[in-house]
């Protein structure tokens, strides 16, 4: 079938500002949008710049604004997209070229919440595993799915307007540890997240939950972290 694409293009070496360019290509209804972007890159304009790797929604490289909403280009099929298909870079991070944005501010927000297991016990090495009940394991299962694609964070209107906000993905990764029974760093993280730039910036727009390609209940996770911060319910 014929597919019409409207791609927001920006080449920092020649353009003053981003502009739309239209492409018409041939594709199968079951093709991924990523396949179509490859056709444009390979057969029409080799300079089209995008990040991608696994091609099936696991590596988190190719989050884009697709017909107005944040999606992974490798996880939406042509048959499900009204045409022309408009593709823009994710918002809220500095644009570098075409669909490539500077990811550093995103990862800085992630690192700010100490996303690693914090333990108070002295670690004598791996004599045995820690015991964790299936129920305790299930408590934080949803937020372990995060692939750091930034689709949630860059769909958040607060994140767009307030550079100090760590954003949904950072909170998701804090949640993953705060509610892990093996972790002892909950208070440390809640102190960080109670401060300026933390969870209370969230206004529950739910854009993040809609954007997550992994189906994580992002807004719920943020609310749970808020509750923990307010009521010390850990």
């Amino acid at each position: 079938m014929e597919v019409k694409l409207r791609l927001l293009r920006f080449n920092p070496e020649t353009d003053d500002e981003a502009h739309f360019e239209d492409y018409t290509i041939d594709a199968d209804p079951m093709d991924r949008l990523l396949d179509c972007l490859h056709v444009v890159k390979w057969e029409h304009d080799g300079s089209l710049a995008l990040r991608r790797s696994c091609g099936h929604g696991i590596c988190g490289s190719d989050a884009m604004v697709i017909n107005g909403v944040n999606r992974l280009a490798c996880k939406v099929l042509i048959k499900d997209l009204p045409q022309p298909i408009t593709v823009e870079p994710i918002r809220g991070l500095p644009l570098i070229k075409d669909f490539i944005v500077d990811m550093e501010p995103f990862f800085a927000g992630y690192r700010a919440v100490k996303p690693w297991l914090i333990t108070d016990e002295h670690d004598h090495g791996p004599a045995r595993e820690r015991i964790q009940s299936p129920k305790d394991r299930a408590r934080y299962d949803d937020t372990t799915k995060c692939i750091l694609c930034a689709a949630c964070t860059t769909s958040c209107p607060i994140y767009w307007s307030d550079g100090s906000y760590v954003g949904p993905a950072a909170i998701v990764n804090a949640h993953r540890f705060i509610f892990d029974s093996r972790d002892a760093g909950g208070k440390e993280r809640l102190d960080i997240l109670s401060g300026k730039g933390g969870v209370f910036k969230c206004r529950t727009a739910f854009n993040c939950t809609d954007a997550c390609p992994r189906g994580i209940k992002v807004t719920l996770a943020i609310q749970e972290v808020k509750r923990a911060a307010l009521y010390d319910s850990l």
Partner: protein
Amino acid sequence: MVQYHDYDAVIVGAGGAGLRAALEAGKRVKTAVVSKLYPTRSHTGAAQGGMCAALANVEEDSWEWHAFDTVKGSDFLADQDAVDVMCKEAVTSVLELERMGLPFNRTPEGKIDQRRFGGHTRNHGEEAVKRACYAADRTGHMILQTLFQQCNKEGVEFFNEFFVVDLVLVDGVCGGIVAYEIATGELHVFRAKSTLFATGGYGKMFKITSNAHTLTGDGPGVVYRRGLPLEDMEFFQFHPTGLYRLGILLSEAARGEGGILRNADGERFMERYAPTIKDLAPRDMVSRAEFDEIREGRGAGPDKDYILLDLTDVDPEVVETKLPDITEFSRTYLDVDPLKEGVPITPTAHYAMGGIPTNVTAEVLRSHHGDIVEGFYAAGECACVSVHGANRLGTNSLLDIVVFGRRGGLAMAEHASTHKQPAVPDDAHAGAEKWIRSLLKGSGEEPTHKIRHELQDIMWDKVSVSRDDEGLSHALEAIAGLKKRFANSRVRDQAKIFNTELVEHMELGYLLDMAEALTASAHARTESRGGHYRADHQMREDDHWLKHTFIRKTDDGDTELGYKDVTLGRYEPVERKY
């Protein structure tokens, strides 16, 4: 402008092996990780089913049984000393990951849960054993995330989106690497006392593959161009359950949890090929069985060209909770609900058993005599220890990256602490600079993708599940022709900033070299063993071929083969039945 960096240890690649090495080296010496992707984009994250270790949390088990299964699975080509190291250290490696916070699934008592996986058995083949530790069907994702978390905790330095283009060798000693910064188009020389390659596989040479677009053999490609050998390149694994036409992996865990393979007649055909463990036979055998079923006209679908993975008899809750990702892949990409109908699958190019030859300390070998390249290490899929021999067992790749990544990191730190930095010449970047200039200023007009697609077609048709002399000779000629055309092709984009066309072009250059090494090695080996099946030499020939292939490129551009004996141990080669 070339920029210079000085480190004790430089690691190329930020998947599981690279990050595990970085954790060890980073605690001890000044360490940098150089990766063409952001760390969590690496393909370790796509590994699904699990990581085997004889924890015996669910059923009786021992590391020796694991070692036996690994050796038998390898069709007796694995080096048994290396297999012992891996299977013994598997137990502490899993426990270490748990201590780092990896969210393994748990038994009712709260211990790490384990499940069945292809080729893993109790007591030397009696029946399938529960040995694979797992986190739903995203075990690789959790390993990658956990290691990345720990690297952040330890403050490991990353150079993201830097593409490796050369190895610095000073009088045969490794002194670092040359990398191309994708964001700026500049070259960087990383001077290092210890250098480790952990660049992953090269499945992108095949039309149908589970591999990421970025798995193009960059590390082994650099090594090969430097005249150093690659080992056992003919052994490439075709995984039996790739989504029809797309190749996206559906984990063996699907069969571990009770999934069954059926042909067009609804027959559970694996009962004929592996009467004891049936659908959980090793991957090479299952892929060949599927290939035979399709060839003999028993394939499913309108074109009789696929097999059905039947999960309809598995408890729907197990499917939704223990196999959520693959269920979603099937629904998203094929519009097929595994709870209601069989999922169309075929073999998909999955894993390179061969690669940069190393010893158990991850030191890179200079030749088939076993001498090493000082200061140079490799680990993970790009390396060949060899623990997988002619066919890797499921879950042993995640184990390999953690065990040998750790060993590599320790060895790098030790070497860097006791050796001086080799004097890197001022023109260390000259070769890479010349190569890139020639790609940008070439006279030809042929675009990258045409050459790549032709390569993928020829490799799939002639060098995949079933091979023979005629097909391999044809492929060798075709690859030589493609290499000529590649030399005359040209990158259209002349940009400095994110010239991803240039990057894809360089990746294709590496892929062509990998395809040449693989096909030439396969052509020479006139026997069938593991993942290397020759329709014109269907038997395994231990008298002649119980040895590792070493292939290198000579100064005049020809390929040269050498062979190294397999290190045997407790297990004498016997016929492989399941």
